[in-house]
């Protein structure tokens, strides 16, 4: 499970936003929503591995989408083609796929679009897809092209109105009850509001984020309050059903 992969490319596709592409060898069969823990350096600073959701997986390559936010992601952005990275994967739970002919919605905020884009790649024929994605400000079309192309209905918003509608993405979704399933990933405030608005919580699948120490359930660092018990995001998640969590 903890193996070395070669970088095929690691390029910026927008300000601070990168796509890391690895050779899928040894082969990883990861699912949308699942993640990998990446060892960024062979030194002890930064000390911990970093979690990244799968963005795209093919038989030849694995891709991750990331934003440079701190020391770890900064160092990762400096890695070059042919460098090798030690990776623990695949980890965590995945988004369950819908049945044919279901009507679903995909709601993404910011970098939360990464696992949702991968989900889009694997949806069966005949699913009716409504995609809503929101950002703070203008981002490269490379980030949302997949959503625009694969969805039956597509809406993009930015908080400053620099592309798409101006405002927050949830303000543009009127009726959530009409969907058979709702898939979401993004900032916690967005997930919380969404969770409160969805009546039948069993239709809702959200991908959660928290600091991770290990990714495999041994540090107990990645806690999220659940309905009946603590959820450990790396093991019980990152994808959880709306009935499992408690945002009250």
């Amino acid at each position: 499970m903890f193996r070395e992969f070669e970088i095929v490319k690691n390029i910026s596709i927008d300000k601070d936003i990168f796509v890391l592409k690895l050779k899928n060898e040894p082969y990883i069969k990861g699912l949308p929503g699942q993640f990998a823990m990446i060892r960024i350096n062979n030194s002890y600073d930064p000390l911990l591995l970093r979690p990244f959701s799968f963005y795209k997986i093919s038989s030849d390559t694995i891709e991750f989408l990331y934003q440079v936010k701190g020391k770890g992601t900064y160092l990762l952005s400096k890695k070059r083609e042919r460098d090798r990275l030690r990776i623990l994967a695949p980890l965590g739970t995945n988004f369950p796929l819908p049945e044919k002919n279901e009507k679903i919605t995909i709601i993404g905020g910011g970098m939360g679009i990464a696992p949702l884009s991968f989900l889009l790649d694997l949806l069966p024929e005949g699913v009716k897809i409504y995609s809503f994605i929101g950002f703070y400000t203008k981002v490269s079309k490379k980030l949302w092209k997949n959503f625009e192309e694969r969805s039956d209905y597509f809406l993009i918003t930015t908080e400053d109105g620099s592309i798409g509608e101006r405002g927050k993405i949830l303000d543009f979704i009127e009726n959530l009850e009409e969907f058979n399933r709702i898939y979401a990933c993004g900032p916690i405030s967005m997930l919380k509001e969404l969770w409160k608005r969805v009546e039948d919580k069993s239709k809702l699948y959200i991908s959660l984020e928290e600091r991770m120490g290990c990714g495999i359930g041994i540090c107990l660092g990645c806690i999220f309050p659940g309905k009946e018990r603590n959820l450990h995001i790396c093991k019980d998640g990152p994808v959880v059903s709306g009935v499992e969590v408690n945002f009250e």
Partner: protein
Amino acid sequence: MNSNLKIQVGSLVFKNPILLASGTSGFGKEISQFYPLEILGGFVTKSITLKPKKGNPPPRIWETYCGLLNSIGLENPGLEEFIYYEMPFLEKINTNIFVSIAGESIKEYQELAKNLKNLNISGIEINLSCPNVDRGGIQFGLDPDILYELTKSIVKISQKPVWVKLSPEVGKIIPVVNLVKDAGAEAVVIFNTFLGLAIDWKERKPVFKRIFAGLSGPAIKPLVLRYIWEVYEKSSIPIIGCGGIMEFGDVMEYILAGASLVEIGTANFINPNIGKEIILELENYFKEERIEDLVGLAHKRKEVSL
């Protein structure tokens, strides 16, 4: 298996000096997907309490330079669930299993020891880093009378080897170590985490709800080694070293400074195979010599520097 790695501590024999530290590998199931736990010299469970504990709210971990601050708050399933769900797996593992216990009163520790008495485990590790609610919240390790009474009663009740895991807060260590030895402990574990602090300067507030948190990882290794050295010089109780062990060379430093065994903690998070990888390196290194002969050897070679 390489018999040169074998080492005796108190009444127990260990096939090698590598153990996994409490709270850094749960109850073993996760790591056992990476390698069979029986290759380890031993395994220490996550600390258990009498009743289940939910632990602290997030954030619970915070990275520092070469270190990790944690404020998990002893989240654990409690004694009953531990015995029911975790013991059946643990007791099948052919190595020394230590159950770490934590409590908020002497009575709680005693109750735990009573219930562990009949289980198929090698021993008990006492985690002292809890506040003693009967004594205004002072840590157990900081009150000599209580520490003596506690250790003595756990040795008596459990009828098993008992290790006492100290926290760096103990201050003057030699009196404490001797007291623990007199109370009947077979070894001391040095150390639990160091208390540290992080401020989220952007939010202008402490990172953790509990303000202070435990620092572990490579940053603390030299600090711990200095205590291992001192205890080896001035006391005869066997030492289990713990703190910042990341690789083979770190284990060697601990052994040479005077530890008979070591516990690997945070390194499991960075590399879940670390226990196995270090054992393989030990097997290679100790082809001719016996590890037992190297314990504390650096003390004899002080003058050899240069």
